[in-house]
């Protein structure tokens, strides 16, 4: 989700990412926003994202995260994986008893 958000919005700070996830999920996923930061750190250490200081909308110093090349690749792989998984699960839900031989 983080990667996809960054992919869509470009460089973004932590709050922005958190808001975006909330918005997209239609406020269904209202987890503690704080838990986002350890995830960001993990991704950064894996090299999927990079971060820099920059100025936020209210002119505060904020850390902006952006997708790296490797992150883009990872996003691609995971997107594919997810689509495949979703497709399989989806098929299970579509199947009705009478369809079975």
């Amino acid at each position: 989700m983080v990667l996809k958000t960054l992919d869509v919005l470009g460089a973004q700070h932590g709050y922005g990412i958190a808001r975006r996830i909330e918005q997209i999920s239609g406020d269904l996923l209202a987890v503690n926003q704080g838990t986002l930061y350890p995830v960001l750190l993990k991704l950064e250490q894996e090299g999927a994202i990079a971060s820099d200081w920059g100025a936020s909308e209210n002119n505060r110093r904020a850390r902006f995260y952006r997708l790296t090349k490797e992150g883009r690749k990872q996003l691609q792989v995971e997107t594919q994986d997810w689509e495949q998984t979703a497709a399989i699960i989806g098929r299970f839900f579509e199947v009705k008893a009478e369809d079975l031989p």
Partner: protein
Amino acid sequence: MRSLRRFFTRLLNLVTGQSPDARLTEEIEGHIALQTEENLRAGLSPAEARRQAMLKFGGVEGVKEEYRGERGLPFVETLLQDMRYAMRTLRKNPGFTAIAVFTLALGIGASTAIFSVVDAVLLRALPYPKPEKLLRLWEKAPDGRLMNLADPNLDDFVTENDTFTDLAGYEHWLSSVSGGSEPVRVNIASVSRGFFKALGVEPFRGRAFAADELQVHGAPAAIVSHSYWQRSLGGADGLSNIHLKMEGAVYSVVGVMPEGFDYPPGVAVWIPRELYPELPSRTAHNWRGLGRMRDGVTVAQARANLSAIARRIKEEYGKEVDLNDAAVVPLADAMVGDVRAALLTLLGAVGLLLLVACANVAGLLVARTSARRKELAVRVALGAGRGRLIQQFLAESFSLSVAGGVLGVVIAIAAVKALPAILPANLPRQEGMTVNTSVLMFAFAAIVAVAVSLGLFAAWRAITGDLQEAMIAGSRSYTGAGTSTRLRGFLVIGEIAATLVILVGAGLLGRSFLQLISTNPGFIGNNLITMEFSLPTPQWQQGMQDPDVARQIHLVEDTLARLRAIPGVERVGVAGALPVAAGDNLADGNFLILNGTKAPADLSEFSRMAQNPAQVGRAYYCVAGEEYFRTTGIPLIRGRVFGDQDDWNSPNVAVISETLARQRWPNQDAIGQVIEFGNMDGNLKPVTVVGIVGDVRANGLDLPPSPIIYVDFRQRGMKANSSPTIVMRSAAPEGQIVSASRGIFHEMAPDVPVKFSTFRDEMSGWLANRRFLLLVVGFFAAAALALAAVGVYGVVAFSVARRTQEIGVRMALGAQRSNVLGLVLGEGARLALLGVAIGIAVSFAITRLISSCWVWYWVKARGLHFSAWP
């Protein structure tokens, strides 16, 4: 891949130790500020807006915690924390820490130092290509004795074998070499064709011997060692102008061997054996054999091959030869054969020492663990798992043994620097002794082994048993004599037993050493100045002419006369070799008893006559000057010693030692016997026995007196002995006499190198070989004893400390001082007695084992005429 990258980043973070908190705090603040603004826009009051923002964010501390965990490596961090904690506890108990670290340092340092010797001498491969292919070869007599090779036999081995690529003979001896910066006495070796090829080493400068240097009367050529080239030839680039004078001939230097090439050990100059005619005798065992096996040939095949040749020789020549078999030993084994047992003994002793050290530290740890049970119980109660506790103990024992190990390696480095001073000079390959990687690996392995075993031991002690009980029990009732005291008791018993084994070893070595130095050598060694020299004439060529001999005799006589004139000098004598210290340089051989039969005309007739055992005796051959016996204090028993009437033209006379008279002529008078001993110096004039003198332990204090035939140097020259020595008795200061003598030698014979010394110094050099084991094992024994004493003290003191209350109660109930003392002493004594009993039992078993080794080793060493060690 990704997780690896993550791991390294985390490791880097850990190492750089940057605090992540600042960045996170700022980010969190930014986050909350943005959210608060958002909430304000949504119409909340400022306070409520901030509260909602905080709520939405969740627990800041929790996030920080998680963030930190994500950032670094929690496992390593706790480990480091444990280490820090361990360091702190250790620092808080400086006494315990110092004792433990020092004990371990002693154990690890001593074993590392000894291992460096073992590594250099036994483990490291010889510095030749494919060293496992190199064999030493011997002829084997029917009684199993190993003998060097006689010329014709060596030739047969060389030409008839089909299992060696190269097979060569070599011999080396001390000689004087001039032509370099100054005349020196060095070892020179005569080597046969194929010697260098067998070893697989070529000169790094110049060339190997050429064809015209490998024939009788060919151009004399020599190859020198790297160190001789550096020291005496100044590392000269061009070799063409360098000539060496030795053995009565002038040799041109054609090559320099590479640095580190040292075979036979200590040789400075190699010359071709082929320059000189071969001896036709098949029983003159002059050549040491060396060969390189062909690829794919096993040692057994090589031996079988040579055995077949030996049997063929025996069949063909029958009584003319004394071999009937051949023997081979891998070169590496042959070089260290004598010292393997000694080194393994040392390694065993040092292993015991390390064990004692470990037991001691283990004992200390047990004591500390018992004292810390409450602390542990609290930690368990607060949720520490067993793994966590074990980790804590390992951290502690690692800190201890790493500290001990580092100190130990420092000790080992110092010891390895100091060792050459006490190492016996004849220990082979000791020059390669350094603290190198494999030695450090050994030390590292020792450290890890010690750390793991101590840590697990302490942890096991700590977490077995119900810790909760310790909590409840409190300090008062929990004195329960308990398992830990018993365990420490066992440790101490083991320690004492191990110490006793080392002590008994040291005692045995010490006793034999004392026996050695209290042995009467047969003469008076005090105030004897010795001058070992070599004459600038061929000593080993049989073809030395009479005028040469006469000139030599005159030179020695004149020198003796001038030396005698030095004020303060009482007596001056000369002999073929200094007894005890250089006794191995005396040659021994069979002589003929003539008594009426005609003397043999040549050496082949001599060997024919020598086949009649009734006519043969065996003795050492020693040339001596008139005053030799009086100078050294060898007593005259019967007859007379050499006198002025014995000169070049008068009948040759001999003086024999008491042992020989007793052995060879038990029921007759030895005086008046006529002997033929010309096989030693090529002079076939018979000698008549005119006197019997006291015995001398010429070959060493540890061997029975040797049968010796002394002949007069004025009648037979000096050539039969390789290290002629002038002995001088004087009570005057040594330095004064030596400088006066040096001047005389310099005038009389400028190119004769002389080694000035005193008999006392020569003796202590000889004893050094025997003293080394004693010194080292004695040191180990002392160290182990000290450790064991500390161990016993520790156990008793600890148990007294824990039983203070009990003792108090006992005294209150009327126990006397003596009762309490008895209680405490009894505990220590019980441990000590048990330890001693076990130690004695083990010592018996081990000394029996060792002494059987020793016997084997003595027999072997003596059979091969190696100098014995120890």
